[in-house]
């Protein structure tokens, strides 16, 4: 054994530049000139994400580069872009994990580009809105406006759809979907997964209306389980799965005429009184019109 301090088994120096990465970035000036690609050399440290790289470029090399980001922790869904040909969250993708020295960064496919890496997400939100992503109880609007209690739902019933409530609306699945690529009228994985989320929610009773909404020539049947949306989803939502379950529900509704269980308003507990130290709920802040 020789003396001296032993070398650490793992090099944990996070500040050491371990690689110079070429960022090949899609540039579009927003005025109709043809887009170009521009290379930037980014000194890369361990743990650095593609978003960190873009921030570094903007700070040190080119202040005119545009992209969208906010939370830097995979929650807000702003930073979705094509990274080496696949749609990903820039803040969740570490540069060294890509195992290349050239990283091609482009705006999300299938959306119009506003500038550089900024897509116009209108179609995503319009389609989401089109499937009415909120609990509906036709004929019981008053109960929704002035609730007399909570809807009774078991944990097992919640498990049927909770996976699909994790969607952060980053729009990545629409960039991965082959049908969205060529058919602008297709509702797309995001909206269809949300349609299923409400079809499967026992608190919602607009089952028939929801089945009608997706049962069209450009609706749920234009999904062919290519699975790219699920593969790309950064939150594990599995939209392709939700869509197949939705097809099954439409089948049960249309062909078998099956009814789904409906959650009732939990009855008020009887024979009990409120403890004196529990405060009353605050007054409503939202006015119903």
């Amino acid at each position, binding site marked *: 054994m020789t003396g001296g301090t032993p070398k650490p088994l793992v090099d944990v120096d996070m500040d050491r530049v371990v690689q110079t990465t070429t960022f090949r970035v899609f540039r579009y000036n927003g005025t109709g000139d043809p887009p170009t690609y521009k290379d930037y050399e980014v000194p890369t440290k361990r743990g650095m994400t593609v978003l960190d790289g873009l921030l570094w470029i903007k700070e040190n090399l080119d202040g005119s580069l545009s992209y969208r980001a906010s939370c830097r922790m995979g929650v807000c869904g702003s930073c979705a872009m094509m990274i080496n040909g696949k749609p990903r969250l820039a803040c969740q993708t570490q540069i060294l994990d890509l195992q290349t020295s050239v990283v091609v960064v482009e705006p999300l496919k299938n959306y119009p580009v506003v500038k550089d890496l900024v897509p116009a997400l209108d179609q995503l939100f319009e389609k989401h809105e089109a499937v009415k992503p909120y609990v509906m109880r036709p004929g019981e609007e008053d109960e929704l406006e002035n609730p007399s209690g909570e809807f009774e739902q078991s944990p097992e019933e919640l498990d049927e759809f909770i996976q699909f409530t994790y969607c952060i609306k980053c729009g990545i699945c629409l960039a991965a979907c082959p049908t969205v690529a*060529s058919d*602008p009228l297709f509702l797309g994985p995001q909206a269809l997964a949300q349609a299923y989320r409400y079809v499967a929610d026992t608190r919602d009773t607009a089952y028939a209306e929801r089945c009608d909404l997706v049962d*069209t*020539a*450009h609706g749920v049947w*234009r999904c062919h389980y290519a699975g790219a949306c699920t593969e790309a989803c950064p939150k594990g939502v599995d939209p392709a799965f939700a869509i197949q379950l939705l097809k099954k529900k439409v*089948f049960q509704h*249309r*062909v078998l005429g099956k009814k789904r269980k409906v959650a009732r308003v939990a009855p008020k507990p009887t024979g009990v009184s409120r403890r004196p130290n529990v405060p009353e709920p605050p007054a409503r802040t939202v006015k119903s019109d």
Partner: protein
Amino acid sequence: MKESRFWFLFLIAGLVLFLLLGYHIVFIHLLGNYEANISFQSVASRSVSPAYAVFYLLFLVFALYHGFYGLRTILLEIEALARHHRTVTAILVVLGVGLFVYGTWALFAAMKIGAVG
């Protein structure tokens, strides 16, 4: 009619085709002597049988429906055609029905000549 009905029929047709097509491929194309199977003699002698006619009539209906609905799916997913789904459907229905009529005519006409051969 809702899109779902057409789509379920399309899948049912796919399921039926799996059986019919399996039979057709194995017995005409693979087993026995191919040259003999497709000689006029052999073809004509098969053509007279009513069971044969029924089999191929079913085959024709299911394959045309499945194939043309599938074709419609593909065409409707093309941006330039997506907005014209009535026109696309109408053209495919005319083509499909035309092929069905022609095929049916051929099956029945063949029953007669089969007796000659």
